[in-house]
């Protein structure tokens, strides 16, 4: 393994509320990932000024989105990250409008993969790229995350990531916040450490067998813009 190339971990916060339960849980995960040697960064969707998908289906023909805003460079960065963590609280039994707007904009990559067939991920690629869903919910209802899981399944599939794990904590109203939850933050940190170690090990395993080249265009020498938001 090239020691100059650490495991890159991108945390995407879809909460409109700074430093709330979900962002705190994401921070714990990212701290753990950093401890294990990951190159971590957090991006806040609120304030990016991105538009929701217009449902114009132009990408079904062209593979490109007609909306040119901050989300396109963000998708480019996700595609070259090793680990992504999507963090959204549950509002009204679903992910937030910010996170849903972001996920919906991946439609052009879906079109590349399923309509135009210009996008393809090898099994090996998917195994080496880990997607994690981080969430909190006010209520303790059994099914409170049920509508979020299929959305994450679809998103990670489109992006070529294995849906590796959930870091979720419900009943926040009863616990009076994530900091009072007995295990959530320490578990998030532990999962952050573990996933970086695991991906580092997979990367160390060498390149994929010949003929099954992992597509990681633009990875080497790519300079990631933007200040760290932590």
């Amino acid at each position, binding site marked *: 393994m090239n020691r100059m190339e650490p495991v890159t971990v991108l945390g995407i916060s879809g*909460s*409109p*509320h700074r430093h*709330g339960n979900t962002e705190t849980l994401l921070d714990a995960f990212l701290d753990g990932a950093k401890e294990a040697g990951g190159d971590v960064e957090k991006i806040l969707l*609120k304030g990016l000024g991105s538009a*929701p*998908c217009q*449902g114009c*289906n132009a990408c079904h023909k062209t593979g490109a989105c007609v909306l040119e805003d901050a989300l396109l460079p963000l998708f480019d960065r996700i595609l070259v990250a090793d680990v992504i963590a999507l963090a959204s*609280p549950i*509002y*009204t*039994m*679903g*992910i*937030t*409008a*910010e996170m*849903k*707007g972001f*996920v*919906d904009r*991946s*439609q052009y990559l879906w079109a590349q993969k399923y309509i135009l067939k210009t996008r393809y991920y090898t099994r090996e690629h998917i195994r080496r790229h880990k997607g994690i869903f981080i969430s909190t919910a006010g209520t303790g209802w059994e*099914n409170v995350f*049920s*509508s*979020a899981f*299929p*959305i994450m399944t*679809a*998103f990670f599939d489109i992006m070529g990531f294995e849906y590796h794990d959930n870091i979720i904590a419900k009943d926040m109203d009863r616990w009076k916040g994530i900091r009072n939850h007995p295990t959530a933050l320490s578990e998030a940190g532990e999962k952050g450490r573990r996933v970086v170690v695991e991906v580092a090990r997979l990367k160390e395993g060498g390149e994929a067998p010949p003929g099954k080249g992992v597509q990681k265009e633009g990875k080497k020498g790519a300079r990631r813009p933007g200040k760290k938001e932590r």
Partner: protein
Amino acid sequence: MAKEPGIAIEKVALDEVTVEPCRGCNACEVLNKCVQRDDMDVLHDKIVEADCVIFASPVYCLGICAEGKALVDRAQVFRSRKYVLKLPVVPPERIGKRLGIFISSAGQNWDIVFDGAKMSIGCFFHVTEIKNKDILYLLVRGVDKAGEVETHPTARAEAQATGRKAVERLREMHR
């Protein structure tokens, strides 16, 4: 429904008005109103005053679209009013006389394709005092291309039947 006597219809397109996403500040749990000033101020009153609220959103990525989710989340003010402040959302005599309709289409044919959407919409109707038994669903699967719903074998007939049923239910409620 529009052709029925005594029924007044109004349609609001969410992409033509401004409804910002909920900020999650929970101020409405104390203030009984939202701290944001946008077109939700007007929509809030219309939702309270209507006898029938029809919510239409396509399914994108197994959920309602972001514009629809923003409106649903802004209904938090109703939830705070009902469950935290224990104040009426509509006058007591109108409870049980409100009808909700969820209209949606999805490109995929999967059985589960509307499940996530229905969970959020159900909450939206509950906090606006529309009971589970008073929600009608008009859901069309497998329409992905523009205009495909027009050539769908049953969609038009189902839509008309839902409209007739809604008028019938409303007349029963207001007899």
